[in-house]
């Protein structure tokens, strides 16, 4: 707790990094969008019995990721992904004098070191004295963040947020607030999650996993595909931004509201989603018509898309912006999705990208919402809204604006 003064000073996105099923870095992801190549497929690295379920895996085994991340062999996949993406973001920002600035790492995840804990439990469930302890040593979400913060030498503010699927969106806006309070000059913010049997089986019990490739916002949608990855933005204060050769955009609005309807289901009228989007607009001092593109939460479940679509219609009609769910490419990366989609949103503002919503054919009957199915470039996007809604009714919307 500092005595820094809180100001409404602008916050800028200066760097971006991603690893997910459609690319090991930002450039590869954009190429995949351009070519319409989705990341889903059969299970290659996840060792689950539910082979019938398509997943969007990062296309490397842990050994390869260890080399890419420069971390030790026993590191959780969650941390490896985090480190690769966060490092890309930081080097992309190219902040030369970072050691003389106050730098923080605000990261989110939902599984922590669960990939390793699962291993441990296979033995532990049989014999409480069995199982390699090093596999459970970094089970906690916070450990993942700390390992990466140490790798990247980010020390002034380090914390972890876990609010299910909105986790990393909350991390990003918490980081922005820390800068606005004068507690940080630079923050690497976003999230990570690895595919684990735990989450795959968990979502499977909820019967919201599609056995085919997901179809967000389509009338025939039948659930989500799980994915994995990490996505980070580098947020900087106005002063730091002025010293940088390039920035992506301004991070202008954010809001977290709770649906307070059900532990896992969204309310039919999308109250939480509506409040989050409305709150973010208010924060950014914008009208609905100012938004040019919405990166949807768009998981592809009946419930989410219906609630989100209803909220969008309520808030935006008749000026419904272009929209798409990039989860049709990346799968639902849970705690990483808000970070990955924030990167996509920042790039959208910078380069005028609107991403395609794959496999969309017919709008939901009750809602006439048609997402974009082409990849657009050079679109003059002034403001982009990114939605991330999670279990526990946690709804967060972020707005990225032309700098």
């Amino acid at each position, binding site marked *: 707790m500092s005595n820094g003064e*809180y100001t409404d000073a602008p916050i800028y996105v200066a760097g971006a990094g991603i690893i997910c099923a459609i690319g090991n870095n930002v450039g590869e992801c954009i190429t995949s969008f351009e070519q319409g190549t989705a990341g889903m497929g059969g299970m290659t690295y996840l060792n689950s019995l539910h082979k019938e379920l398509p997943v969007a895996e990062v296309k490397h085994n842990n050994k390869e990721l260890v080399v890419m991340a420069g971390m030790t062999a026993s590191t959780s996949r969650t941390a490896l992904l985090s480190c690769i993406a966060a490092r890309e973001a930081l080097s992309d920002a190219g902040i030369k004098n970072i050691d003389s600035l106050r730098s923080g790492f605000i990261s989110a995840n939902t599984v922590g070191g669960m990939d390793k804990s699962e291993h441990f439990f296979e033995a532990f469930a049989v014999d409480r004295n069995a199982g390699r302890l090093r596999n459970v040593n970094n089970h906690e979400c916070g450990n993942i963040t700390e390992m990466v913060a140490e790798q990247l030498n980010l020390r002034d503010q380090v914390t972890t947020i876990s609010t299910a699927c909105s986790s990393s969106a909350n991390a990003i806006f918490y980081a922005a*607030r820390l800068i606005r*309070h004068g507690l940080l000059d630079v923050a690497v913010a976003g999230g990570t999650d690895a595919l684990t049997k735990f989450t795959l089986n968990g979502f499977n019990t909820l019967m919201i996993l599609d056995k085919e490739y997901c179809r967000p916002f389509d009338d025939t949608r039948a659930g989500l595909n799980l994915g994995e990855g990490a996505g980070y933005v580098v947020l900087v204060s106005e002063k730091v931004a002025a010293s940088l050769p390039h920035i992506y955009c301004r991070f202008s609005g954010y809001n977290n509201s709770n649906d307070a309807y059900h*532990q896992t289901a969204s309310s039919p009228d999308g109250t939480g989603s509506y409040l989050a989007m409305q709150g973010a607009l208010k924060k950014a001092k914008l009208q609905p018509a100012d938004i040019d593109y919405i990166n949807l939460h768009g998981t592809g479940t009946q419930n989410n898309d219906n609630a989100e679509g209803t909220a969008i219609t309520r808030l935006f009609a008749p000026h419904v912006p272009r929209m798409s769910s990039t989860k049709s490419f990346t799968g639902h990366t849970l705690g990483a999705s808000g970070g990955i989609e924030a990167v996509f949103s920042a790039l959208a503002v910078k380069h005028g990208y609107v991403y395609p919503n794959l496999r969309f054919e017919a709008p939901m009957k009750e809602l006439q919402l048609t997402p974009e199915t082409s990849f657009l470039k050079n679109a003059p996007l002034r403001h982009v809204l990114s939605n991330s809604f999670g279990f526990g009714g946690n709804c967060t919307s972020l707005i990225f604006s032309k700098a």
Partner: protein
Amino acid sequence: MKIYIHSATAISPQHTFDGALLEDLVTYNTNRLQVIEPPYQDLLDTKLIRRMSRIIRMGTAAAIKCLRDAEIDQPGAIVTGTAYGCLEDTGTFLTKMVEQCEDLLPPTPFIQSTHNTVSAQIALTLHCHAYNNTFVHNGFSFESAMQDAVLLLREQEADNVLVGSADELTDISYQILTRLGLYKKQAGSNLDLFNTNTKRTIGGEGTAFFLLSPTPSQDAVVLEGMNTFYLSEHAQLSPERIAAFLSVHNLSVEDVDVVIDGSNGDAIEDGLYKFLQQTIFSALPVIRYKHLCGDYPTVSSFALWLAYSIIKAGKVPFSLHVKQPSAKRILVCNTYLNKYCSLMLVTK
């Protein structure tokens, strides 16, 4: 902006929920201290109580009670810290997943294993659409939540914030943490924790919630300051760091009436506190508390509850064995795993 704590509620291995301030201490002869669950009927829907796991029950109940004590219907924000999240459900789902070969698994443990379940359940119970966040950063989970709450108030995003922590120790986690070497090899009475002169500590769990706002009231306690130091090489709670922290608030150690320190019975780790008592705190009464609730990542929330309760009650409980009869300003120093250090300063 001054931040006031208007109410504080704790469910812990002691009788902390019913208002009696540690009059009768509960003795444990194990290394695992478990919370004493109060009757929940007045606070939660009976049907819900049965469905909730222990951590969700105690977290939600403490939060509701905290709001009632502050006479607030709807908080302006809900922020929770938990290091481990909902371990009971996580363990149940993991075990079933292994034992049943990923087949015929029940959804409820998975749903309730999500780290933000307590925060969400509070919102759900209150039908509260406001800001809702959960920090999961190990020994700083509660401190992070507190920081978020204070920042929200400074931003005027909320009139008041319900902030708290919840962590549970389950059979599985106790076994694993024991194997990882966190707890003492020999069990003894928790009340003798500081007399063992052995390594390691005892396990604990608990929840505590606070209602923070910038508006003063009769019984409110001021949260004057908070700071965290991370990583051992940075973290040494040196006399200089403590003095610097106090001087930020234009105070010196003479202005402090009582210190609550984070000694946990580990003969080596507690060396830090012994050093502080010989130096900066030499003239100050020190309260130790981890023998009451055990050690766990969000244990500093218990210390803050204790500091609040002492100031509000206007007396230091006899059971704490401190000569000081009352305190107007209390400094809470905590360390967890010798890695996460925090300072909190509260005053009348």
